């Protein structure tokens, strides 16, 4: 073996590593724990970590009082809807860029990425006024349109990098064997591009779910997703820590789990290939 790592060194790093990891994770852990407390236990001094009366009442209350389920459904509609529309636009574009590149392809791609760098406040006012005039404020359709557009550059970019990894020779070989275009797509290309598309969908859903500029500015109730719903806890009435925690736990749990699968996609999608 090139280098023997001593057991002591490993144990030291285990202790430091876990301490740091738990410290960073603590606010999330604390939110989850608090969601199972009574409001009284949630603000007890000193704080109660594990020894309190575990209860599910907050989850029930949050649903009963504010119809939590409706906001959750909006989050699902918006993130899946914008991702689906995004795929319809992004797959053909990324496909063309990867398989029939022209000298201008690079410029087009860079230009697309540059639109992602446009600050949202630069276009907030016209978008708001157009939405108001067309009756799109607080509508799911309008918001799907915006979310799809802000994630489109990332989707094109991600798909492009995955498609580029598909070797062109395979296509030629299939063509030589007399495969028609439709056969070529269904039997050769589709299976090879599924992993890339899945990764893109994952990242797009995560980004759309957590988007909190346009959702806060363009929705109030009917189309409001969880980001907007949680924001309503910013002007609290009375005891609310446990209820805020229950609402928050439900809002972040699905994305946290998806997110843990998406470490690699995150680096790939958000750095635009600037880090290899």
């Amino acid at each position, binding site marked *: 073996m090139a280098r023997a790592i001593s057991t002591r060194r490993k144990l030291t*790093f285990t202790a*430091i590593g876990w301490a740091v990891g738990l410290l960073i994770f603590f606010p999330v852990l604390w939110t989850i724990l608090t969601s199972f407390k009574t409001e009284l236990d949630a603000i007890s001094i000193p704080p109660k970590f594990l020894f309190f009366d575990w209860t599910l009442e907050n989850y029930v209350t949050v649903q009963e009082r504010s119809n939590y389920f409706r906001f959750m459904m909006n989050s699902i509609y918006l993130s899946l809807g914008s991702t689906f529309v995004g795929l319809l636009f992004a797959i053909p574009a990324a496909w063309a860029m990867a398989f029939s590149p022209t000298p201008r392809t690079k410029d087009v791609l860079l230009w697309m*990425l540059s639109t992602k*760098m446009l600050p949202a406040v630069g276009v907030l006012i016209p978008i708001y006024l157009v939405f108001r005039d067309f009756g799109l404020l607080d509508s799911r359709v309008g918001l799907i349109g915006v979310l799809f557009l802000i994630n489109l550059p990332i989707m094109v970019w991600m798909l492009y990098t995955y498609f580029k990894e598909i070797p062109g020779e395979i296509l030629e070989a299939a063509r030589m064997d007399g495969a028609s275009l439709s056969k070529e797509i269904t039997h050769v290309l589709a299976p090879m591009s599924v992993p890339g598309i899945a990764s893109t969908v994952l990242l797009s859903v995560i980004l759309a779910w957590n988007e909190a*500029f346009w959702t*806060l500015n363009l929705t109030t109730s009917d189309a409001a997703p969880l*980001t907007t719903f949680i924001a309503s806890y910013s002007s609290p009435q009375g005891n609310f820590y446990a209820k805020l925690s229950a609402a928050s736990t439900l809002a972040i749990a699905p994305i*946290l789990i998806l*997110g843990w699968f998406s470490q690699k996609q*995150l680096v790939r999608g958000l750095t635009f290939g600037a880090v290899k």
Partner: protein
Amino acid sequence: MATMQTKSAARLMMAPAVIALLLWMVVPLSMTLYFSTLNYNLFNPAQTPFIGFTNYSFFLSDPAFFTAIRNTLTLVAGVLVITVGGGILLALLLDQDFYGVNIVRLLAIAPFFVMPTVAALVWKNMMMNPVYGVIGQFLNFIGVGAIDWFSNAPLTAIIIIVAWQWLPFSTLILLTALQSLSEEQKEAAEMDGAGALSIFWYITLPHMARAITVVILIQTIFLLSIFAEIYVTTSGGPGLQTTNLPYLVYAQALLQFDVGGASAGGIVAVILANIVAFFLIRIIGKNLDA
């Protein structure tokens, strides 16, 4: 000819995405530019006379504007210092081989997936509240005394919250860069008698330099647009202490209905972001060639 055919087919396939983004960027941006030259108030939308650069001179001579610019830059700089410094340390730690390192990695990247409104409200209430917050109780316990973050150091509080959200991003990217560093190079340096610190300084850090640059550029672009965290915790206050440029534009337009002035602010924000984007696009472009 086949190539001509594929070329026009390729154009056709790219057209929807290109047109969609073109409309999304060019149309609203030119509307913002146009609005910024009008005296346009939503209370009196019938009268929108052209006033040239007056909005800009008003906006740029407004003390609130300079406060917002200062807050925006402080926020970006503060978060960058924490996330880049902390990210390097954390990446070095997670690059080690220890028991459960994969689980610790998952714990450490979790904050990135917490939606901004949840992160902000959980930190404001359950972490930073001077009476019931965990940090306050801990500081009381060790005898330092609780801090009323949102009254006494509101911008610092926002910086801490945003840095917590972005630390995983820099860590992940720096860890990716770190993992491409060859073990042999480090071992050779060790053989030559280099200590851990000089290996870090002369080998590891230069190797990460490019990734660090990219982290700084990308984060700056996203951090210039921080909005939700301020919206749900402080609404820009107390006073203007936590008002950054995006929040100022929002307040000017949707709370004070001054479309012209807000548009001028929006254009300033675009220019600010473009300075950073210029360098980032160049790096990305170079990598696309390679």
